[in-house]
């Protein structure tokens, strides 16, 4: 997933699959919208607000996206 498109300041090399992304300093409602737009652009998957809300780690988010592919 192209999180470099979503984040400006976060060190992407430090991200781990099981990291709760909401704990990141840069996480915000705009980062959530950016993540949904990135997923739409990259995978042609439109995540619902509910799906976005229910994922808490990068792995869960990826699994949710994968379930639509």
């Amino acid at each position, binding site marked *: 997933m192209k999180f470099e498109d979503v984040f400006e300041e976060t060190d992407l090399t430090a991200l781990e699959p099981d990291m709760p992304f909401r704990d990141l300093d840069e996480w915000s409602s705009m980062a959530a*919208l950016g993540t949904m*737009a990135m997923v739409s*652009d990259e995978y042609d998957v439109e995540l619902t607000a509910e799906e*976005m809300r229910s994922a808490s780690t990068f792995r869960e988010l990826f699994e949710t996206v994968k379930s639509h592919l």
Partner: protein
Amino acid sequence: MFTLQGKEILVTGASSGIGRTAACMAAARGARMTLLARNEERLRQTMESLDGDGHRTMVCDLTDEDSLKEAVAQMPPLDGLVLCAGINEFMPVKFIRQDKLERVFQTNCFAHLLLVQLLLKRKKVNPGASIVFVSSVSSLMGVPGTLMYAASKGAVNSAVRVLASELAPQGIRVNAVCPGIVRSEMLAGTNITEEAFTGQERQYPLGLGRPEDVGFAALFHLCDGSRWLTGQTMVLDGGMTLI
């Protein structure tokens, strides 16, 4: 004062949300309605809930010029238009693309301007008619993530002023209503969670809006009681922009 007896009124986006509610409210006050939307089944449901008779439905994709021209050809001369059809996509600016921008502007702005143009050209807007654009308070603010939607509605607000002055000699009035957050199907279809909207509610001294709140404003604009009102954008936001 709020009677619409004998008036022919067109509503776009009539199959759901503000459009459906406004159509029902106008029919209840004696108007004969032309309902336009893409979804035939939901359009039929709106039709069935209207008071009175003589109403008609038109299945039309506003963004398809041929479909729009065909619909206009079948329309009766109109005394009122309520232009509700709209779409909404929230994203940070860096994710905007030309195709996304075009899609939002096409529905929210260009299609309605073209509809008005075609109706005028075919002399289907009666003298004394009232045209009501459903804009948005977003067009007057700068909420992060709303660029495409806000800019498309801002373009509508500018068009309203030009149309109002151009059409005043024919006694045709043109105004916009700018609602804040209204609980509607369009809202439910966006990529914003229910929680986020509940959070927004705190910023609304009178709470979030209902489709009827916008419907009543549309009725006022449509009726003859507002005959001296043109070129304006009425903010309907439960006091949100006050605080």
